[in-house]
């Protein structure tokens, strides 16, 4: 069985330029074949296969997913950005609880003038959004106040692009 561990250097996985090129190709289209990626990079498809398996094994590639244009599915759901101001001692617990709700799509702890949690929320409509925040978020111990903005237009939605200038992935 092939050794699928990537070399470690200073507690970071060492990825070379070819690994980054493969990641970039997969970010553009994760359904393309090993053959197509190999042809594009000028390397054998077996090399592409082996490197992708290593990247998966080391969880550099966490999963393959689908970016859906929800407007084209006919979905009437709304998206909102919610800022939750918290007692600093309760931030971790509040974030942990919020992470369990299916309405919460993304969740971050941020430092601004105050410590706050920011979350991207999805709800069927404005009334459902309000009910979720009033019944499930506001009552959480440590929540000081909440500001919410409903998204009216999406100008861009993508993931961070992998570049060959990246030095490595820290564990």
């Amino acid at each position, binding site marked *: 069985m092939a050794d699928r561990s990537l070399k470690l250097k200073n507690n970071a996985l060492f990825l070379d330029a070819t690994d980054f090129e493969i990641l970039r190709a997969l970010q553009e289209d994760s359904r393309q074949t090993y053959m197509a990626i190999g042809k594009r990079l000028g390397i054998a498809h077996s090399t592409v296969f082996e490197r992708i398996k290593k990247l998966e094994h080391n969880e550099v590639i966490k999963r393959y997913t689908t970016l859906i244009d929800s407007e084209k599915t006919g979905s009437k759901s709304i998206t909102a950005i919610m800022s939750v101001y918290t007692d600093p001692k309760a931030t971790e617990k509040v974030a942990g609880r919020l992470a369990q709700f299916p309405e919460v799509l993304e969740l971050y702890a941020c430092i601004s003038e105050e410590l706050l949690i920011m979350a991207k929320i999805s709800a069927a409509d404005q009334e459902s959004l309000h009910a979720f925040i009033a019944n499930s978020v506001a*009552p959480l111990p440590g929540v000081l106040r909440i500001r*919410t903005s409903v998204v009216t237009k999406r100008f861009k939605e993508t993931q961070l692009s992998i570049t060959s200038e990246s030095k490595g992935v820290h564990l």
Partner: protein
Amino acid sequence: MSSETNRVLKTVPREKAFYFFTSIGNYTGISALSLKEFMEKINAVNAKSLEFHLYRGDFEKWITEVLEDGELAGEIRRIQKFNLTGDILRNQVGAAVTRRFKRLSKV
């Protein structure tokens, strides 16, 4: 104390508290766990919050379903019909809640 007084003046768990918002999803950080706290917070909260909740029927719903006080809910519903705003609205809601609280406290 009568059972009605006990029921209406009870302190509720935080998941049943009234949370004051100023608009959809914008929570002020002010909440009330009882009729007494509700009466006090009416004077502390932004008048926009009172307008937001009164005309959505949130006060009436909470007083009916959580405090189980049909009489005060009826008073709130009556105030709702006058389309009041700002401090005039605050005074009307505040007076109705205070009257009810004082009457129950005396029993």
